[in-house]
C-alpha cells in the first residue's frame, strides 16, 4: 500500500477537525472536532509504525504504543472537557463558546451574597456527580 493513502486521509481528517474547532459554537461540537483531530494523528502514527516495522530490523513499536497513549489521553481529555463544559453550563446557562467572554465567575450578580448565587445548587450537583461517576 502506498503510504500516501493513510497519510492523505489523515491530513484531510485533521483539517476537517480544524474547521470544526474554528467554526462551531457549541462547546461539545468543538470537543467532537478535537476528537477528529486526535484520530487523524492516530491514523498517522499507525501508518508510519506499520511502515517502519517492516522497513527496519528492530523497532520498539513506538507508533502503536503512542497511539494507545493518545487514545487514553483523549479519553481523559473528553472526561475533563465535558466536566468543564457542564460546570460552565450550570454556572452561565449556556455552552455557547462565543458568549463565554469573561474569565471571572458570577459576572451577573453583584448583590449581597452574589458569589454564592453564581454557584450551583445541591440537587443538580449531586446528579452531575452521579453521572460523572457513571460515565467515567
Amino acid at each position, binding site marked *: 500500500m*502506498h503510504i500516501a493513502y493513510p497519510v492523505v486521509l489523515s491530513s484531510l481528517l485533521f483539517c476537517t477537525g480544524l474547521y470544526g474547532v474554528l467554526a462551531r459554537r457549541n462547546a461539545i461540537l468543538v470537543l467532537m472536532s478535537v476528537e477528529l483531530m486526535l484520530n487523524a494523528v492516530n491514523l498517522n502514527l499507525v501508518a508510519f509504525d506499520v511502515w517502519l516495522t517492516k522497513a527496519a530490523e528492530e523497532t520498539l513499536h513506538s507508533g502503536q504504543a503512542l497511539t494507545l497513549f493518545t487514545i487514553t489521553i483523549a479519553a481523559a481529555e473528553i472526561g475533563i472537557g465535558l466536566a468543564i463544559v457542564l460546570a460552565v453550563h450550570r454556572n452561565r446557562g449556556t455552552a455557547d463558546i462565543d458568549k463565554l467572554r469573561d474569565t471571572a465567575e458570577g459576572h451577573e450578580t453583584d448583590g449581597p451574597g452574589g458569589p454564592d448565587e453564581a454557584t450551583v445548587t445541591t440537587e443538580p450537583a449531586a446528579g452531575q456527580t452521579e453521572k460523572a461517576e457513571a460515565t467515567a
Partner: protein
Amino acid sequence: MSLAAAAVAAATTTTPPALAAVETRGFLSPTGVEIAFLLVGLVTFGAAIVTVTTRQLVHAALWLVVALGGLAVEYLLLTAEFIAWVQVLIYVGSVVVLLLFGLMLTKAPIGRSPDADSGNRWAALTVAVAAAAALVWVVVDAFRTTWIDLDGPAAGSTKATGESLFQNWVLPFEALSVLLLTALVGAIVLSRKTKTESSSPSVNSRGATGSSSSVPDSRNHPIGRKGQAEQEGAR
C-alpha cells in the same frame, strides 16, 4: 479525496524514471487493499465532513460514530488489529456515549439549531482548506516513493503490541494509568461542589424553579429561609 488523488497522480508522474524503475509497484494499478482503504476512507471523510457541518447536534455525534468506526476499519486494513479494537471499545463505545450525555445535560436542542456554526465560518473554511492543501502537498511530495509492506505477519497483532508495550513501554504505561486516575478524580471534583458552597442561600429556590432569576425573591421570603435553615441543620 479526488483532488488529493489527482495531486498524488501528478506527483507520481513527476517521479524520475530511475526511481520508477526501482519500484515495481505502480500507483495507477492499486491493489485490493488500497481500493478498500480508499473506499472506507471516503466514507470516513464524508462522515467527518457531515459531523462538522450538520446543524443537528445529536446527528453530529452519530456521524462521529461512523467516522470513528471507519477509522477502526482503516486500522484493520493496516494490520493493526489491537488498535482497531481499542478504537471501537473506547471511541465508539465510551467517548461518543459521553458526548451524547454531554449534549443531553447541556440541554442541546433536538432538531435543527440555527446557531450551530459561528459567524467566522468562512474564515475557518479558508484556514482549513489552506491547511489541507499544504499538508497534502507536503506529505505526498515527501513520501511519493514510500510503500507499506502489508504482507507477512501482522505488524500490530495483539501479541506484538502487548510484547512491545510491556517490554519497552512499561514506565510510560504506568504513568499513563496514573494520569487516567487523576483525570477521573479531576472530573469528579469538577462536577461536584465543595461543602462551603453547597450551603448557599439559593438551595430552595433553585431546586424549585431551576432558574436563578427568582433567587432574590426567595431570599426575602421567611418560609424559604426557615426551610433552608432546617435543611442546613439536617445536613
